């Protein structure tokens, strides 16, 4: 019952804020924070019990939502280690971000609306995590899309925000297009939507491998959309138009992680479809590398972090693709901490400087020490420096990749780690230590904003030890047991600390830091040195490989201005004017022609009459 309360409370709060306490901003924010904190408190006992019982039996509760002849759809919750960890991440990071928002959004005219949307988002996100079947996950999947639409478009007066919200929703929709088709494929292959039952069916070998590959790839489309993988990654950077806490909550810690969570939830499917896994791994690896490269050439603090998020998501998907579901989930969790931290830190900086441009900041360290220190810790975790959390989780992914035997992907991963280190050091150096370029008087943010930063930084530092190799039960085992019915998925799944991999990645990271530091710590730098040295590369990266451009000019324009216009032309000119009005016109013209026989000449009529009589007579004569 408590699980249902967990799900429903944020919804009730959201509706309550929207309908009742809209005018009372303080109360709205407390209600919203309360909802998510209560959620956290509900999850906490489950989490604490987990290490003692890593092979817990999944708890399933469900009621029938639709029941007609031939179709039964349930709504239900599934509690297993996987969902507990995800619930923890969502409610914990969510709570901190809610608290932070209370400070950050202070004085905003849409304060209550913001919190109503946040609660709606938490509701939808928890729905995804708790789902026990594919339809329910899809339902909440879409609701998350709605909530993110509302939050990204929060400053709806800004055209760029309105566009970004629309873009996010639509790009997600394109992914969902594949997702829902994948659900149908699975339904017709197995006759059920329920995860556990589907898993049984697949384990029993009832489904042909071709169908499985198809279903896996289609479902992966959903994750590609939500977790912003290439080629549907374009919405995420634009989504930074939303308020910063939104970026932290949605576009770092939770919503984008939903795709990865969903892949983990359906990992049994991928385990049974190795062909699909290869594609998943490559898309993840490519996204990671591409996003890191693009991040190099960005100068908007939130965009840099956004692209680093893309890169991290690529990592997670890569992990799933090489069979390291546990590694992926582990990275998801640590990433939630340090990325939320980075975003909130960035928000604190933006709050202080009133700009997003890192080249208009610099020398902020003396002014905002708490923010700077926590940001610094988050950066180290993000880069994956020993012994911060990012190190452990990234290492698991890299070693899983290495073990899978795909050295190309492994090289991509190492390269990404290197580039990540470069641009994160650039970010830190330019923002906090470089020349003073800010205007006005930046000051430290209020306590309500810094305390969440401190808490998050603690987790960003230590969370990695949950995956410490010597630990038993290790994080990886939790997630594995999520698919208990299937047992072990295969050889890839087992992780061992690989010293070679760890040292390689550490060398890459340290190299990256050194490079970034040495380039960007020079005095008197006004803008990116890369733009001067490598103008073409910089331009290419700054424009994000021109992918948005290609979409806009070719796909969107082709559909909007091409296909839609052509069809509209057909509709207006051919169907309506030519066929419909044309047939009416033809009848009218015939009428006009026949009208001319009405000469008004009496004797013409008499003439026709006599002629008619004549004809009748001739017929008469011929017959008789």
């Amino acid at each position, binding site marked *: 019952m408590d699980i249902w309360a967990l799900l429903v409370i944020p919804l009730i709060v959201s509706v309550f804020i929207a309908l009742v306490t809209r005018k009372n901003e303080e109360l709205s924010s407390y209600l919203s924070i309360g909802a998510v904190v209560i959620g956290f408190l509900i999850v906490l006992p489950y989490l604490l019990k987990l290490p003692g019982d890593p092979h817990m039996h999944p708890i399933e509760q469900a009621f029938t939502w639709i029941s*007609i002849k*031939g*179709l039964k759809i349930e709504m239900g919750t599934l509690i297993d280690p996987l969902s507990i960890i995800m619930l923890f991440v969502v409610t914990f990071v969510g709570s901190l971000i809610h608290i932070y928002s209370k400070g950050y959004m202070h004085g905003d005219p849409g304060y209550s609306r913001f919190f109503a949307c946040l609660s709606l988002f938490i509701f939808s996100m928890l729905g995804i995590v708790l789902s026990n079947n594919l339809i329910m996950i899809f339902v909440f999947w*879409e*609701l998350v*899309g709605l909530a993110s639409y509302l939050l990204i478009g929060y400053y*709806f007066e800004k055209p760029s925000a*309105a566009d970004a*919200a629309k873009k996010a929703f639509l790009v997600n929709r394109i992914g969902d297009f594949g997702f829902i088709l994948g659900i149908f494929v699975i339904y017709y292959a197995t006759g059920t939507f329920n995860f556990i039952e589907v898993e049984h069916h697949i384990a029993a070998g009832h489904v042909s491998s071709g169908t499985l590959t198809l279903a896996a790839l289609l479902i992966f489309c959903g994750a590609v959309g939500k977790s912003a993988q290439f080629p549907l990654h374009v919405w995420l950077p634009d989504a930074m138009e939303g308020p910063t806490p939104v970026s932290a909550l949605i576009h770092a810690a939770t919503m984008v992680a939903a795709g990865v969570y969903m892949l983990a939830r359906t990992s049994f499917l991928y385990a049974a479809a190795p062909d699909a896994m290869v594609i998943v791994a490559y898309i993840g690896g490519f996204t990671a590398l591409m996003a890191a490269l693009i991040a190099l050439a960005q100068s908007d603090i939130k965009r840099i972090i956004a692209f680093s998020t893309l890169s991290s998501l690529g990592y997670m998907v890569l992990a799933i693709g090489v069979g390291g579901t546990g590694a992926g989930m582990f990275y998801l969790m640590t990433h939630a901490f340090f990325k939320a931290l980075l975003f909130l830190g960035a928000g604190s900086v933006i709050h202080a400087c009133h700009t997003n441009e890192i080249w208009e900041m610099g020398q902020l360290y003396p002014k905002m020490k708490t923010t700077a220190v926590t940001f610094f810790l988050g950066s180290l975790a993000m880069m994956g420096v020993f012994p911060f959390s990012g190190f452990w989780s990234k290492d698991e992914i890299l070693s899983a990749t290495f073990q899978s035997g795909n050295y190309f992907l492994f090289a991509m991963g190492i390269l990404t780690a290197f580039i990540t280190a470069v641009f994160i050091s650039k970010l830190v150096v330019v923002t906090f230590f470089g020349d003073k370029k800010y205007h006005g008087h930046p000051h430290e943010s209020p306590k309500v904003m810094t305390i969440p930063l401190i808490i998050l930084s603690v987790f960003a530092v230590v969370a990695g030890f949950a995956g410490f190799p010597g630990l038993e039960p290790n994080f990886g085992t939790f997630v594995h047991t999520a698919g208990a019915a299937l047992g072990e998925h295969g050889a890839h799944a087992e992780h061992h600390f690989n010293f070679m991999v760890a040292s390689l990645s550490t060398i890459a990271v340290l190299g990256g830091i050194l490079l970034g530091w040495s380039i960007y710590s020079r005095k008197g730098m006004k803008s990116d040195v890369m733009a001067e040295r490598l103008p073409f590369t910089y331009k290419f990266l700054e424009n994000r490989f021109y992918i948005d451009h290609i979409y806009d000019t070719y796909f969107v324009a082709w559909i909007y201005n091409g296909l839609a216009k052509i069809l509209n032309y057909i*509709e207006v000119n051919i169907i309506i004017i030519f066929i419909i009005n044309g047939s009416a016109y033809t009848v009218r013209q015939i009428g006009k022609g026949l009208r001319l026989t009405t000469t008004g000449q009496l004797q013409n009529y008499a003439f026709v009459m006599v002629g008619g009589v004549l004809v009748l007579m001739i017929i008469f004569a011929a017959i008789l």
Partner: protein
Amino acid sequence: MEGFPIISAIIAAPLVAVIILLFLKDEMLWLVRAISVATTSLCLVLSLYMLWAYDKAKGGYQFVERIEWVKSLGISYYVGVDGISIAMIVLTSFVIFTGVFVSWVGVKQRVREHYIFLLLLVAGVFGVFVSLDLLFFYLFYELAVIPMYPLIGIWGSANREYATMKLTLYLSFGAVFALLGILSLYFVAGAQSGVYTFDMLAIGKLSLERSYQIKVFLPLLFGFGVLVPLAPFHSWSPIGHAAAPSAVSMLHAGVLMKLGAYGILRIAMGMLPAGAQFWMPYVAVLCLINIFYGGLVAMSRKDMKFMIGYSSSSHMGYVLLGLATLNYIGVNGAVLLMFAHGIMTALAFSLIGFIYDQAHTRMMYDFSGLAKKLPFVAVAFAIMGFASSGLPGLANFVAELMVFIGAFKDYPFQVVIAVFGIIVTATYMLRCIRDVFFREPQDKWDGLKDATTFVERLPFVILIAVLLVVGFYPSIIVDIINTGVVPLVDKINAVPHG
């Protein structure tokens, strides 16, 4: 309520109100509106009572009434409802009830006459949904179509003469084919059984020859299809929506188009199972034109009403796809979609009408930033837009999901296109929301007023509530639809394929 003729009461209430209104003076505005509201709320209450009182375990036709009318020709006033009819009647009741309020706000001239035609139309619609006699079905059908002509012609907006002419001609054209099919059924069934009757159930029990069924299915499909509207005979509908006053657009898109689908379901499919087996796969192909083409045309339209108009024809494509599946899931989904789309589109037209009545333009590019001025309308419009693009939590999602699941087995390709159509819908809906409600507010729209009074808000609130209730708890209506769908589908599938 045992023995009380509920169905007749539902049909008669608007007619009685019409007669009363005829004797009132134009100046008695308050009384005119009060009578209309009272009548329609009576209909709403009665239809909700039917929804509640219908015995789902028993199924079949209930609340049946029968009075012989012309015995020698086998015509009788024969009404009754099954699950499908109840869903449609509840839909109609909601739409007309809210429509009366929308007209309250929107119609300022010839108020009395407006309500007279509106109620006349609704009586016809109710009649169609409950008739179990083919001739009465046709009579009510015409009664529902004809008042459209004055309603659009007199109270319409730009281009109304053209629109109303086109609409009426189109619908009469379709109706002629439907009549042809109905008469053919009457004579052929009569010749086969020896008893000439318009009784749908009696004719439905006969097993007519397969080749005949295939032949006569076509005029019925075409006749009702024009009203659906089945592409490429859809062009009357967007312009009709665009020119009609809000309440009429609501009824038109919300209910009238459903008459066509209902006719196909009840008469064509219900009485000619072999014909349905033969032809519905073709419909499954044709509906793609509706979905895809209608969607893309909607995308390129700048006039909001035209956009919703084309989107309606796009959505009716999903209904046709659902009907074409000929299985429980798909047909259930189609009927539910008829219901959901009716409510959704009524909401759309009432909102657009609300804005148009103040701004006197419906062009998206004329607006921006209305969400600041009209927060209530903006929220309602967004809910409508999301319902239309199939967002979970709103009724359309459930219906579309069922249609897709039902259709995926036999028509996977169509489902792929149809799901893509949802993206197209989302595209133009979101673009419309962005253009109209988001971005910087403009000074010239400072004069617009939000919906604040009870009368203004009531229709929006009711329609949104219905969308949400059905979206969250679809069983409330799906269960009852299912009782009507199951025997129908069973009957079609019982026919041997040949």
